[in-house]
């Protein structure tokens, strides 16, 4: 595993915070990715900004990976069933709970929302518990 670099972690996080601030200040929108995706796949008129945000995200990711990165991002092992099961639960749970790490975490905590604090503590707890069970109980 690559070394932990707190400077790029903090700077990367701050860029995400700046992005969320820009989207809220100029457009009045919350930078919650699950919400943006859910709105995008409705393909409604007037919601084109969601697709443009997603295209921007991909462009930003590519800009980092192919121009700025000191070394390529490590490629994780291909685990299709875990990805499909996990992805389904992430999609189901974020729509049910009205947000994900960005909507509740970055934006909700920024707004000092009690609902978002509960959401963040809940998904961190179940995420940690799930990895514990998978890695240290089931030994997968």
């Amino acid at each position, binding site marked *: *595993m*690559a070394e932990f670099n707190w400077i790029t*972690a*903090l*700077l*990367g*996080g*701050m860029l*995400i*915070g700046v*992005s*969320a601030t*820009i989207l809220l200040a*100029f*457009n009045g929108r919350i930078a919650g990715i699950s919400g943006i*995706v*859910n709105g995008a796949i409705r393909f409604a008129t007037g919601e084109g*900004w969601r697709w443009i*945000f*997603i*295209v*921007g*995200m991909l462009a930003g*990711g590519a800009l980092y*990976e192919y121009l700025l990165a000191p070394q390529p*991002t490590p*490629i*994780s092992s*291909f685990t299709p069933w875990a*990805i*499909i*099961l*996990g*992805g*389904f*639960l*992430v*999609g*189901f*749970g*974020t*729509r*049910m*709970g*009205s*947000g994900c*790490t960005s909507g*509740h975490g*970055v934006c909700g905590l*920024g*707004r*000092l929302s009690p609902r978002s604090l509960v*959401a963040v503590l*809940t*998904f961190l707890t*179940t995420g940690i*518990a799930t*990895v*514990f069970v*998978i890695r240290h109980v089931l030994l997968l």
Partner: protein
Amino acid sequence: MKQNLVALIAGVLFGLGLGLSQMIDRDRVLGFLDVAGIWDPTLLFVLGGAVIVTVIAFRFVLRLSHPLVTEKFHLPTQKNIDMRLVIGSAIFGVGWGIAGYCPGPGVTALVLGIWNPVLFVIALILGSLSYKRYSTRSKLRD
């Protein structure tokens, strides 16, 4: 038009942030969630860095009478902490622990040209549509 330009700039910064912080590497995220293993604190710094910015900047932004290029703020209206919020977030956390991606990094990791994010995004959309269908049906029953 201006709104779309803002969305593009915000999207680029978001993707850049997820790349720089290496959240697009799911092993790092799983390393953070694995508190009983070789713990990787990266995600704590990423979320911390983002929240430091939003906690300070949102104070000023939300004092504006309206956003700078649109007419009104679209903020969540629900205030109550209900079972839907808690159970939904709990299910999301379980999925996050299994897949190692949450929506932002999962979408951005599509640029790595590997299969994991592709399957993740498809499954994410199917999961989201399933909840929508399920909730519409249960509303009809009531």
